[in-house]
């Protein structure tokens, strides 16, 4: 789950991370008042769940409160299209109005969990304000990765090592260690999956400041973070994906016309791959999950069909815990309820497959039933949508 910049900064400030003074605003009037409180000159930043805001016109420097209001008015209610949002963009409902900062140097600082090391790691670079992936690719020696042992936490010698790699002056050693410790504490306590401060800046008056901040929370931890869960802004997510996640279905909308419904994430990716290899284009990734029943199968298909881009459907079920007869009943139920019924190819295998096939054959629906992955790919590509 991603947080907005203003939420991330509030959270980090609560742990003692220095952030610029600022106020979130939902209207031009609020933005004007916020800039006024900050002394007039202010930065107006669109709050969307995407990077690349600056280049896309989502960050503007206002000379006075009136201009802050004008910028806010132009942003709020529109969508911002950045290289991370896709062509549909992300809706702007709020702006963050912040004090302007005179920057001496821009640095990069983040914490995430390294699956290979199975440990939290701090990633730091003196090359701030850029995409860290790009820095890692072109100047790998400019990126420091420091693993942290969760049994003892971040140690001072590690803080000194990172500060040295960042080229920080001696007098910023202590403030940097305090900032790194605060971030690590927040990372663990909040079940974060990423805290990224880019840029972390040294101001002209010699202080450290988190000029931008991104925080993601591990979705699987939300059962113990009720307050954190309330920070979710579903307007930043694809509506069908929100509906799917509420139903416990893993769904990702894509651009193709072949709706794919599968049980299991790996098999779902495999199914998308064979559709593509056969010349088609998947409309979605959909994993209905292991313990699905008839109702959930039906719900998943109806959800998938509500994407008007779906012109044909491929169902691929490997029956294990989920029995094929249950899956077949769910398919028949969904096609009975749906307001449109695109051509359907079903491949089922495993537990109770014969009963499942019989239910589909007896349903009166036009269904192409196949036995193997290859036949499924061929059958779906032969359908002219």
């Amino acid at each position, binding site marked *: 789950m991603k947080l907005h910049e203003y939420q991330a900064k509030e959270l980090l400030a609560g742990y003692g991370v220095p952030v610029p003074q600022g106020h979130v605003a939902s209207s031009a009037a609020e933005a004007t008042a916020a800039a006024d409180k900050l002394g007039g000159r202010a930065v107006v930043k669109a709050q969307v769940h995407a990077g690349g805001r600056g280049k896309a016109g989502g960050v503007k420097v206002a000379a006075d409160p009136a201009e802050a209001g004008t910028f806010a008015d132009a942003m709020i209610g529109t969508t911002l299209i950045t290289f*991370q949002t896709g062509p549909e963009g992300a809706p702007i409902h709020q702006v963050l109005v912040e004090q302007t900062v005179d920057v001496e140097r821009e640095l990069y600082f983040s914490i995430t*969990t390294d*699956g*290979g090391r*199975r*440990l*939290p790691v701090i990633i730091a670079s003196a090359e701030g304000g850029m995409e860290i*992936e790009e820095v*890692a*690719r072109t100047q790998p020696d400019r990126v420091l990765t420091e693993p942290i*042992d*969760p*049994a003892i936490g971040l140690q001072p010698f590690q803080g000194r090592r990172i500060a040295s790699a960042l080229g920080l002056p001696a007098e910023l050693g202590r403030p940097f260690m305090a900032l790194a410790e605060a971030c690590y504490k927040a990372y*663990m306590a909040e*079940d974060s*999956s990423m805290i990224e401060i880019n840029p972390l800046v040294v101001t002209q008056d010699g202080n450290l400041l988190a000029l931008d901040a991104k925080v993601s929370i*591990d979705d*699987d*931890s939300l*059962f*113990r973070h009720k307050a954190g869960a309330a920070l979710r802004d579903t307007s930043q997510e694809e509506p069908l994906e929100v509906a799917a996640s509420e139903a416990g279905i*893993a769904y*990702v909308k*894509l651009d193709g016309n072949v709706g794919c419904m*599968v*049980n*299991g*994430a*790996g*098999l*779902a*990716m*495999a*199914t*998308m*791959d*064979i*559709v*593509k*290899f056969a010349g088609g284009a*998947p409309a979605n*990734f959909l*994993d209905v999950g*292991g*313990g699905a029943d008839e109702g959930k199968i039906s719900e998943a298909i109806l959800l998938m069909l509500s994407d008007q881009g779906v012109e044909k459907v491929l169902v691929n079920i*490997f*029956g*294990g*815990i989920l029995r094929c007869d249950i899956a077949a009943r769910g398919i028949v139920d969904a096609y009975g309820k749906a307001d449109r019924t695109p051509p359907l190819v079903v491949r089922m*295998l*495993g*537990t109770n497959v014969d009963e499942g096939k019989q239910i589909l054959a007896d349903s009166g629906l036009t269904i192409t039933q196949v036995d*193997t*992955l*290859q036949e499924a*790919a061929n059958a779906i590509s032969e359908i002219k949508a």
Partner: protein
Amino acid sequence: MSIFVNENTRLLVQGITGREGSFHAERCQVYGTNLVAGVTPGKGGESVLGGVPVFDSVRDAVDATHANVALIFVPPPFAADAILESADAGVPLVVCITEGVPVRDSTYVLRYLEGKSTRLLGPNCPGLISPGAKAKIGIMPGNIHMAGHTGVVSRSGTLTYEAVDQLTKLGIGQSTCVGIGGDPVSGTVFVDVLKAFNEDPDTESIVLIGEIGGTKEQEAAAYIKEHVRKPVASLIVGQTAPPGRRMGHAGAVITGTAALASEKMRALEDAGCHVIPTPADIGSTVKAMLG
């Protein structure tokens, strides 16, 4: 023969009185697994599934039954504690099926397991099965498997079943099939399983099924190149997934170029693996590889 489990496997199921736990414990038992105990705190003294004793704690269960494999079905908030309890009782193999365990919990658990003799498989995995030893420790459908000499290791559940089904239909039996799970932080990784298959005299060839995201396949490729002389066939799924999107498995996010399917396939091919071109070609590629 087989890896991690064998004829001497004595299974205990944590969460055996729950819906999932009792359903799958019975399936394991029916397959032929020696199910010796269940653990549900507060339900010690009861018995289930035709006389399997239930204990309040793993230590009690191990003391009474000498169980040596634990299979976990407890809900996500309590899964880490269940793993730690089995490790504390000295259970050598712990298989955690539970999906949705917070990454922080897995991180702490794996730090605790360092230097201890317990191997963790999972969390969020289908488990493992050895058809020859009649040992099924997980949620996979038992009937698609066939005893033989090909080891299968995968990050996925149903895709592993797909692979096994293709193998069995071509008469290629399996020594052990291991699902390591899709979480970003997990106990047993490809390299651990490859090492065990490499040392197992009864495993003559290996099938490795990976996914986009992370760098576990590259680590596997490096290990294969250095150590494995048995034939290996490999498939990477997610070749058509768009970058940066989460595809169900939290581990399957393309973060950098190393996480791309093409990079993983290149690394495995460079290590001498037989590349399985599409998910429909798993069986045929292995058959051709075995000659």
